[in-house]
């Protein structure tokens, strides 16, 4: 039986060490809170029996929990304490895990670097001059720094897999509907999904298994039994067909990324998998489609932060409209304001058909691309997770489009609702490179099995060129 108190003390020391290095993975955590949870856990009759007993899990600050504030990295929710906790957090606690604290993220999960966090960015533990990726960068950094072995993140367009790749850890984005969104503060509701981080495939998959399953509080969850624990590492991938979509390997792909993915494909072949070239022809429309659908939903989801009931209120205003303007103008950062404006525009009368409705049609085509490939006997797709390794602070801040394009390989899975994961497949000049496995709908088990075998067969810390 795990000594939960010892686990809490141990985790506190590791988190303190991580933060002492200036990582700023956490927006909120405390040794006292951890020890209090451990005491309560130790006193419960089920102590030590859960699947995650003794684990300490960091939680992205867009996910509501009962211990710490849930600010979403935004001034407008500074100090907000949710009166309820997310289903995913409840489930991981019921499985015996402790909540380590809340991690830094881009404001309302909008960003790819944590530079849009109102309370300061997290740093990449591998190279502190570089971003950890985002928006779930704090969770990725916490795992990479060894502060925790598992963390919850959330994805709307790659916000788990991209930071996992940048920080050299594993990140899984499950099938849409696999994990309840209840308590996940909404960004793009038709894309949002809670995902998991782990130092290895198995730990990320174990955390996902614990939080998965139908929830009556979220009508979009799949009516399936929860995912099982990952099995042992497969010695062979014979009989497994892995598709390589040509659209994800363009001319001029970053040399380190290219070398790492090529090496990983060799390993997969060595393991007995069949590598098959495939095409997902609508991939080029994914980023523009994503940047219509996600901001449109965000513009509506973020309307509730109006200063009336909770959060920031700019009280100096003379009437309610002026109060809205002052509160939202001051409470939201530049990127959030940009996306609200974008989303409001594409939903406006006269523009809806040209943008939102058209984007929904293109989304169907992107979904059909995946469905066709998987129906043709491919078990999983293998691609780079990101076009480049982690970039430096400030590098993309002035150029939103460049920032958005760092999501080019990850946002397709969110649009298509299919599961995908990123695992470290090597390093280039010391920076981690991530490889992505994309599965068919509800195919988490398959991509986890392939990822475990690949992880086992390559040295992810080795330079790839």
């Amino acid at each position, binding site marked *: 039986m795990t000594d939960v108190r010892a686990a809490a003390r141990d985790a506190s020391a590791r988190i303190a060490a991580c933060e002492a290095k200036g990582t700023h993975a956490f927006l909120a955590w405390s040794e006292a809170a951890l020890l209090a949870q451990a005491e309560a856990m130790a006193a419960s009759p089920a102590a030590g029996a859960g699947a995650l007993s003794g684990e300490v899990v960091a939680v992205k600050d867009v996910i509501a929990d009962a211990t710490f504030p849930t600010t979403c990295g935004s001034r407008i929710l500074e100090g907000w304490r949710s009166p309820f906790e997310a289903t995913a957090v409840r489930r991981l606690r019921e499985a015996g895990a402790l909540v380590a604290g809340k991690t830094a993220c881009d404001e309302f999960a909008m960003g790819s670097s944590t530079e849009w966090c109102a309370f300061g960015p997290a740093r990449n533990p591998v190279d502190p001059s570089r971003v950890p990726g985002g928006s779930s960068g704090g969770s990725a950094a916490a795992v990479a720094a060894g502060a925790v072995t598992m963390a919850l993140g959330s994805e709307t367009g790659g916000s788990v897999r991209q930071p996992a790749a940048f920080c050299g850890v594993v990140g899984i984005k499950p099938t849409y509907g696999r994990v309840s969104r*209840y308590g996940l503060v909404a960004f793009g509701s038709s894309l949002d999904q809670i995902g998991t981080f782990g130092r290895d495939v198995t730990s990320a998959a174990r955390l996902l298994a614990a939080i998965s399953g139908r929830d009556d509080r979220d*009508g979009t969850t799949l009516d399936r039994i929860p995912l099982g624990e990952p099995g042992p590492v497969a010695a062979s991938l014979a009989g497994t067909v892995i598709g390589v979509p040509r659209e994800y390997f363009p001319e001029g792909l970053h040399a380190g990324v290219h070398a790492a993915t090529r090496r990983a494909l060799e390993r997969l072949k060595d393991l007995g998998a069949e590598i098959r070239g495939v095409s997902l022809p609508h991939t080029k429309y994914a980023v523009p489609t994503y940047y219509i659908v996600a901001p449109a*939903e965000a513009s509506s989801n973020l*309307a509730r932060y109006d200063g009336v009931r909770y959060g920031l209120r700019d009280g100096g205003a003379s009437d309610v409209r002026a109060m809205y303007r002052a509160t939202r103008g001051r409470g939201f950062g530049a990127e959030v304001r940009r996306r609200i404006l974008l989303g409001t525009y594409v*939903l406006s*009368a006269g523009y809806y058909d040209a943008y939102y409705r058209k984007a929904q049609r293109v989304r169907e085509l992107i979904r059909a691309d995946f469905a066709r490939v998987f129906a043709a006997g491919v078990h999983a797709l293998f691609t780079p997770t990101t076009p480049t390794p982690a970039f430096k602070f400030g590098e993309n801040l002035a150029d939103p489009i460049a920032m958005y394009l760092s999501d080019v390989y990850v946002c397709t899975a969110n649009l298509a609702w299919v599961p995908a994961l990123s695992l470290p497949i090597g390093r280039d000049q010391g920076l981690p490179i991530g490889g992505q496995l994309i599965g068919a709908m509800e195919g988490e088990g398959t991509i986890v099995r392939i990822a475990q075998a690949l992880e086992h067969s390559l040295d992810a810390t080795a330079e790839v060129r």
Partner: protein
Amino acid sequence: MSWETVVGLEVHVQLLTRTKMFCACSARFGDPPNTNVCPVCLGLPGALPVPNEQAVRLAVRAAYALGCAVHGRSIFARKNYFYPDLPKGYQISQFEEPLATGGALAFVSPERGEMTVRIKRLHLEEDAGKSFHDRVPGMTAVDFNRSGVPLVEIVTDPDLRSPAEARAYLTALKQVLRYVEVSDCNMEEGSLRVDANLSIRPAGASELRTRTEVKNMNSFSGVERALTAERARQIAATERGERIEQRTLLFDAASGEVRPMRSKEESHDYRYFPEPDIPPLVLSEAWLATERSALPELPAARRERFEHSFGLAGPESAVVTATAAIADYFEGFAAKAGAGSGKEAWNWVANDLLGLSGDGETIPLAVERAGEVVQLVKAGKLSRQAAKRVLPELVAASHDTALEVAERLGLLQVSDTGAIDTWVRETLAAHPAEVARYRAGEVKLMGFLVGQVMKRSQGKADPRAVNAALSAALVTTSG
């Protein structure tokens, strides 16, 4: 020039569910402010809506009652606007694919007689909270108890031609929705709200002209008054050569006037889009068929059946089918009270028993107890007039029989010939002139004499026995 009025109505009706549309909070009216609230209906970060099955069932029932086609697949949509009592910054409603379309409601227009108004669509949505601008000086207070309460919106085609016709439609709509127990349609408590669209055109024209929307009416008569005022305003403006602008006006019940809203408040682009938090609402054919077959008899069918089964005229049938409770009562009364023919039963219910109803919707006296009164009358122990006095007493005295009540009130008729003979003798003695005129052939004085005997008996004499005794006495004494 003579003008024709064109009216279409949008009616919001609160569904009779125990809980709210998307959460488990109570939907009860009148509780202390902000006591029936939770993360979902307060729009807290991370909360999600899950549709209430009973609300869907009631909406489907309303749709079938209004003859609509109910769609096996409909979708929820977000209607986006900022208002302090709208906690999420959007209302969950239905837009492009509503629950039901293409219905009709038959009713009697005060001007055109029996007619049908087309129902364009019926959709589900949630209510907003309620703002109070007068509770705290200089501030607005908001009560979110109503936030998330389920509503259906019922939209007509522009088929109505006058304010009075609009009111008649509303009365018929309320009757149907109450019959099928979808809503209590209480306008004062806000469980039925009406937005009216009105335009005018030259009589005989067929095109639709620019319409205005009138809101803020709190009774059916208010709707009629508001539309009358708006019609007058539009006619006057048009005749002055002004153009009617499409806008929203608010009715002021105190002054009877309609006033335009500030344009800032009405210029909404609602940016509707499909609600991503709720999957399409899919209803199986089997489920819909069950709901459809479970629909109770509607007012029109019941009116017609009563006309045939009980030999009632149309307007008579309408009186005893005003509500399902009254119609049930009437049927029970006709079967059990022993009043005789359907028409006699109708006389009792329409003329005596409905008067006992405080709200015009239910009769507070069991059919069996009402039947006791009928039997007393049939047996000659109670006059038809005295029965009217017994009935309200019977409602109040729930443990007494009708006989006991009649006795206590001293209303039991005297059929005892000895007593009646005495009153007759006294009456004839007191009115010799009238008796003489009667005997001289002025037979219509019989009524006067009967009345005098009744008066002498303080209403207790059985009029038939009095008649007999009086006729006998007049013959005897003359002979």
